[in-house]
């Protein structure tokens, strides 16, 4: 196979505009074969658009690259044969049964034994006994499992999953991620977009994208380290009041409530400590220096990118 250098996705300078608004700006990324690559970023940041460009559903205005060794501009049809794309919205036929949907996909990809392939997938998905149920009548979790099953049925080399676990309960989410890891262990490359931090932490590599710009990428540890963020966790009374008072002070880049505590973070440690000094001795407040979590990093990135691009 061409492009056998261990890179599944290799794109440079992707740009895409809709109606004069740039949705993806000069985006470059590399995804290693067999890895799970997490795509994070606020709503409308260009995640879906990037995924659609990768699977040939959209043509980039500029930029180039390869997907599984095929040119994303010229070889869209070849890419489609080897890529499973799971859309954000459930996009199987609601008025077809589980089995009929899977057989449809199997036939479309030209599998020799479509019925057999569908039957095996139903077993693998644990949908035995529900194969004649209409897809539209399944619960959210089952719909999502079925959609994943339909994507993996033709044995793709790359899976593109666009917010696959939105609106799915925690148990189903965990099962889903176990499945993703099992698939990656078999050599499948997975690009998955998500809003959930726990999911981001289960990825081999992550990238953060905001307003069409890819801001940071690497392993979770690398991304946290690159942020150079210092974080204090405050517990105590009247935290809402404290948050209001600290917001906007020099060196305080982010103030975010986490349950019963408040995270106060900044990139400039000296300025941050100077700003919070007056409150550190206040009674009823307990300050503790902590490691920034991935969520701290992202919220800070989100706030920063707003300043840059709005």
């Amino acid at each position: 196979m061409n492009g056998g250098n261990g890179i599944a996705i290799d794109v440079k300078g992707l740009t895409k505009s809709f109606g004069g608004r740039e949705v993806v700006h000069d985006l470059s990324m590399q995804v290693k074969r067999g890895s799970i690559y997490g795509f994070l970023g606020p709503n409308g940041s260009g995640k879906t658009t990037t995924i659609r460009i990768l699977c040939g559903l959209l043509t980039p205005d500029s930029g180039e690259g390869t997907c599984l060794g095929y040119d994303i501009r010229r070889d869209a049809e070849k890419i489609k044969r080897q890529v499973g794309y799971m859309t954000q919205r459930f996009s199987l036929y609601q008025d077809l049964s589980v089995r009929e949907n899977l057989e449809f996909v199997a036939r479309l990809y030209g599998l020799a034994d479509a019925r057999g392939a569908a039957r095996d997938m139903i077993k693998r998905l644990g949908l035995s006994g529900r194969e004649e149920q209409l897809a539209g009548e399944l619960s959210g979790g089952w719909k999502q499992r079925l959609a994943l099953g339909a994507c993996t049925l033709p044995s793709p080399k790359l899976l593109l999953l666009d917010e696959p676990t939105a609106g799915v309960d925690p148990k189903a989410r965990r099962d889903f991620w176990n499945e993703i890891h099992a698939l990656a262990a078999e050599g499948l490359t997975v690009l998955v977009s998500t809003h959930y931090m726990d999911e981001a932490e289960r990825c081999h590599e992550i990238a953060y994208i905001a307003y069409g710009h890819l801001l940071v990428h690497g392993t979770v540890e690398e991304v946290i380290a690159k942020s150079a963020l210092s974080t204090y966790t405050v517990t105590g009374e009247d935290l809402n009041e404290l948050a209001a008072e600290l917001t906007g002070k020099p060196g305080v880049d982010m103030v975010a409530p986490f349950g019963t505590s408040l995270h106060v973070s900044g990139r400039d440690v000296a300025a941050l400590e100077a700003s919070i000094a007056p409150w550190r001795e206040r009674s009823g407040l307990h300050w503790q220096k902590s490691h920034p979590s991935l969520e701290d990093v992202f919220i800070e990135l989100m706030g920063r990118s707003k300043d840059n691009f709005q």
Partner: protein
Amino acid sequence: MSAVDHPAPQHEIRERFGFLRRSYAMLIKEFIQLRRDRVSFAMIVMLPVMQLMLFGYAINTTPHHLPSAVLLQEDSDLARSILKALENTAYFRFLYEVHDVEDFDNLLKSGKVLFGVEIPRGFERAVRRGDRPALLVAADATDPVAASAAIGSLGMVVQTALKHDLYIGDPPEMPFEIRAHARYNPAAASSLNIVPGLVGTILTMTMLIFTALSVTREVERGTMESLLSMPIKPVEVMFGKIVPYVLVGFVQAFLIIGIGVGLFGVPVLGNLFLLALLSTLFITTNLSIGYTISTVVQNQLQAMQMSMMFFLPSILLSGFMFPFAGMPTWAQYLGECLPLTHYLRIVRAIMLKGATMQNLHFDALALAILMLLAMTIAVTRFRRTLD
């Protein structure tokens, strides 16, 4: 953060006239949505204007310039006078002059002419001798409305013309007898005309809607996105969506013809296999046009409206409701672009006149061209990406 910066302002809620307020809210929303849907908005104007134009200008139940033929078995001054007189009425237009009975019959059978005049050998001499010979007139009565108006006008017209040419003295007495023959439908039963016509009309309506909704439905339900990400080509999508409905259309055609024969006594004089073959062609043409509509519009409402835009002229200009020959030339040209026009000729000719493929190759070819045209547009219009 924003919650801290901007506390939610408190707005007063009014309880009075709640019914009106809520209705008003709904009304405003509907207006905005209507205004955003440009195509629907355009149809609101286009549909009535189009109907008015068609009914007002194109439709005329009194036919004129009926395509006619003359079977000339003698070339005499009297014969020329009669033809001239007929043509001057503007009811008839003589397109063909034949000398052979078989050619004459074929012209009528294929629908190339709706009217024929036969001037027998020795006609002029017989008139001069005062033998009152017969002038044979044959009308295609598959459309009784068109035929009867033309036949009705005959006697008067000829009489006036001949008086002018001094063939008849005063008091006027016809020196020959006009023998009109309403071919294919001697009893002028309108069901003979309408039932075959309904086969075409019903098929147009149902086939168009089936496929017109097919692509927009996939887009609206969100299934198009995953379909496009799979390795399937536009032509394959099209064939997959059209073929099942060819069967549906076939069943419908069979039903209507069966009822027509069983209940209304409409004959099927021609070859059933030919009828089935050309009906399949017509069904496929309509499905292709419906599919083309569905690749052009953005939602199901627009698809329905666009189908109406196609269906209306099909009914009005095809010769189903009103005689084709009665329409002005521009409307006839428009009619020629509609599959129903050609199919009506085909189905009436096969069922009522026993026509063969030889008589119908023009209309069959027209249907095939319209079908290929629609398919080509559909395949090129089909968006392979979401751009």
